[in-house]
């Protein structure tokens, strides 16, 4: 079964059919064309949309205005808004959505990396469920995978685009368990090799330190070792003629014996269940709720995060780790959208945000290299802590942002299309004011008489560096 599909794919690759990629022509169908009325005093909504998702479009600003922020938040939490048909069609064209890890290996690695980027960029730019996409990115940093390690390129798509996305607004314990079972994580943090007589602590340590409780939250070196032993035998299927690249528990590799983890006794006869038991203990541990709440608050509330963290941590506990419950507290908090939150745009925010604001049509292939130059090539952070949320981590990316702004404004990015004139017409505003409105929610002033130069400068301005 696997072999024949693989042959199909290889044959297709040979014919140049694989990667029958999303095109600019299709993306043009996603461009808004209808006139839209600018809203007065939109800068608060712009900040909220910048922080909740990947930035405003004039249409979303109008929708917030129309139904109110709370109703808008509920819509985003439900994440059931219909996706544009063309977006879905473009995503379906990608091989990474049709084939498993083993079959994908028939394709060159760079091709799969391109598709991973395209899928994420298309969703961040065009998805109607912006909060969900923001959460997918947050969790993909929290459960960081470096695709350049251990065949991550081929494992990631299923773990990310099926499992993680489906739970991005689900419950944290479920998410934690999915991550633990995911071949990409099993390979990335070496649990694949964690076995009887050869205990590898890498996953066990990061599970406690990064994924759940957080560092210095009460566990000991002994807990790390015990946790690592619980996960012995959790590996990736790689036996001959089996459906490879999936989770597998190998009882032969499981270290026998009872364990003591964080004061909980874990029975010897549980086998694979020892790992599951650890995940249950961690999911219910107060330190985990505290750790997740702190990180979420930092992402969405910046400097106001610490004051809201206790309330979000409480939401974690009363709801058994329901992510929606935590996010509702955050998104409806009076400090959400505050001017002085100091939340930096990371390169993905910067790139996706400019696309959304301008109503660009793009297949997204031209956005991959800029992201890399701005130091955020997707899924390639080498250390398990994920790309940084701190502004100070991104001070070296400004030149590349300016170069991106210049190339964008002057139509030099491949496979990308937008028009300032159309934007100005839709909004019935002079070009520079239209640009300022979609970027900042205010009409502001023109920085240059040439609208394209104004656009390049506005995108390159200090104001556009912050969410």
């Amino acid at each position, binding site marked *: 079964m696997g072999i024949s599909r693989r042959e199909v794919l290889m044959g297709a690759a040979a014919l140049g059919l694989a990667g029958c990629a999303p095109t600019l022509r299709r993306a043009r169908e996603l461009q808004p064309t209808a006139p839209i009325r600018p809203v007065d005093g939109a800068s608060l909504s712009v900040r909220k949309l910048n922080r909740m998702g990947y930035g405003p479009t004039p249409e979303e600003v109008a929708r917030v205005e129309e139904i109110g922020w709370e109703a808008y938040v509920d819509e985003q939490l439900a994440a059931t808004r219909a996706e544009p048909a063309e977006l879905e069609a473009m995503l379906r064209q990608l091989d990474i959505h049709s084939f498993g890890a083993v079959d994908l290996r028939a394709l060159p690695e760079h091709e799969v990396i391109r598709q991973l980027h395209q899928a994420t960029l298309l969703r961040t730019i065009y998805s109607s469920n912006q909060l969900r996409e923001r959460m997918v990115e947050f969790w993909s940093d929290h459960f960081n995978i470096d695709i350049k390690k251990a065949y991550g390129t081929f494992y990631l798509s299923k773990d990310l685009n099926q499992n993680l996305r489906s739970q991005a607004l689900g419950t944290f314990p479920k998410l934690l368990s999915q991550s633990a079972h995911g071949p990409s994580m099993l390979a990335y943090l070496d649990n694949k090799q964690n076995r009887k007589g050869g205990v590898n602590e890498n996953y066990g340590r990061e599970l406690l330190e990064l994924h759940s409780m957080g*560092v210095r939250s009460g566990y000991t070196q002994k807990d790390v070792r015990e946790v690592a032993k619980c996960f012995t035998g959790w590996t990736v299927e790689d036996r001959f003629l089996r459906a490879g690249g999936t989770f597998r528990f190998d009882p032969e590799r499981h270290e026998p014996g009872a364990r003591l983890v964080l004061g909980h006794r874990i029975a010897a006869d549980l086998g694979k269940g020892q790992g599951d038991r650890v995940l249950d203990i961690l999911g219910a541990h107060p330190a985990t709720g505290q750790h997740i709440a702190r990180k979420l608050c930092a992402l969405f509330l910046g*400097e106001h995060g610490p004051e809201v963290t206790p309330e979000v941590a409480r939401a974690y506990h009363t709801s058994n780790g329901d992510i929606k419950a935590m996010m509702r507290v955050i998104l409806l908090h009076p400090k959400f959208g505050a001017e002085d939150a100091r939340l930096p745009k990371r390169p993905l925010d910067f790139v996706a945000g400019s696309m959304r604001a301008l109503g660009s049509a793009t297949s997204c292939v031209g956005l991959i290299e800029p992201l890399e130059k701005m130091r955020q090539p997707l899924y390639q952070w*080498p250390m398990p802590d994920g790309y940084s949320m701190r502004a*100070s981590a991104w001070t070296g990316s400004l030149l590349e942002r300016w170069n991106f702004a210049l190339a964008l404004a002057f139509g030099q990015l491949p496979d990308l299309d937008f028009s300032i004139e159309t934007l100005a017409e839709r909004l019935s505003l002079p070009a520079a004011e239209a640009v300022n409105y979609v970027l900042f929610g205010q009409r502001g002033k023109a920085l240059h008489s040439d609208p394209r130069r104004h656009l390049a400068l506005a995108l390159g301005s200090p104001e556009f560096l912050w969410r």
Partner: protein
Amino acid sequence: MSENWKTCDGSALEYAARYGEAGSDWAGVHVSRRQAIVRLGLGALGLGLAGSALAQATFRAAKKPGHTLVVVFLRGGADGLSLVVPHFEPDYARARPQLALSERQTKPLDSRFSMHPGMPGLLEIWQEGHLSIVHAVGSSDTTRSHFEAMRTMETGAFDGRRHTGGGWLARFLTESDAMESTLRAVSFGGMLPESLRGYPPAMALGRLDDFRLQVPEGVAQDGEWLNDLAKLYTGPKDLLAEAGHETLGVLKMLRDRPKGQAAQGAAYPETEFGRSLKDVAALVHADLGLEVACVDHGIWDTHAAQGTTEGWIANNVGDLSAGLHAFWQDLGERRKNVTVVVQTEFGRRVNENVVLGTDHGRSSVFMVLDTKARGGKVLGDWPGLKPDQLDEEGDLRVGTDYRRLLAGVLKSRMSPVSVQKVFPELTETEVNVVN
């Protein structure tokens, strides 16, 4: 300044580090000033054309060549026992039946230690007397977490979680604000390291040649764009605006720098590390006032299949040695103005594991390249490899606190600065490994 370090939290510190001492303009008002401007919303966009041009931005060039400190960080925990082998310890071979390097395979350094054979370049530098090697160097960190151990070392703290804030290099740069240059501190090949956090002018560069504005043809001169952008980035209103201001300064400096400095027989490896060091040498030769350069090397996290004279560890030491050798050649006469420190967050467990790798340990090797190095003998207190000499996890104990060595380098090589300010919790005296 010290008041700012004590009273500010980590985030405010980024401002404090830069403006705390810069005069009454900014001391104490940095946050409110920034908030005031943020409140204007479209501050620069509204006021954009009212500012003056590049001339107003202060691009400060160094007056005379100062000293440059290059910090090479071996990321992931380098196995010091493979780099500098204690062949006099019978327990070394016992602990590593598959991974031990025999005395015959290695290059003698002194009566006790020998060097991994894959580092001919560093061996040559050692023989020239330009290399100090200290063994069993580490920090207080016992979490054996990469992040905790790196944070501890890069913050220059006893405990990375309870440190006084910012990176040790950032504190050094702030404290020794003697030489003013936009290009005082750079890092290559990634994001700004923790050690430079708290010093916003520090720049994270990619490749030097690519560091320019790419203005579409026929649109305008790049100088015109630099001017237009400079009007938006007139000054310190927030961390990123300040970074933009500094970036523009660097762009102008690099555009105007003297070019054509050829490497004198320096064969840099075609790797990220080689390219980064080549750029550092170019900046040193260009006299732009570079004081601190951070370059990462690695990944050294050799949990499995680390190899001996071939494989992972051999590739790593080969690249490290070739890069540093080429750099040292390239510097030529300028060597006397440069010190290179090579450090790593921790060493690796003495016993090899069953997948022929080594797990996280405690102490490792620390090296200094300097024309006045104390060579001839591997330095440092050696805790020993006998089972009862190891720590509770079976790791080589820390013989020398890394801070004592860094403090020694700062004191003997860099501009005068209070060690207490850079390493506030350091109670032991510094150790000089350069004369």
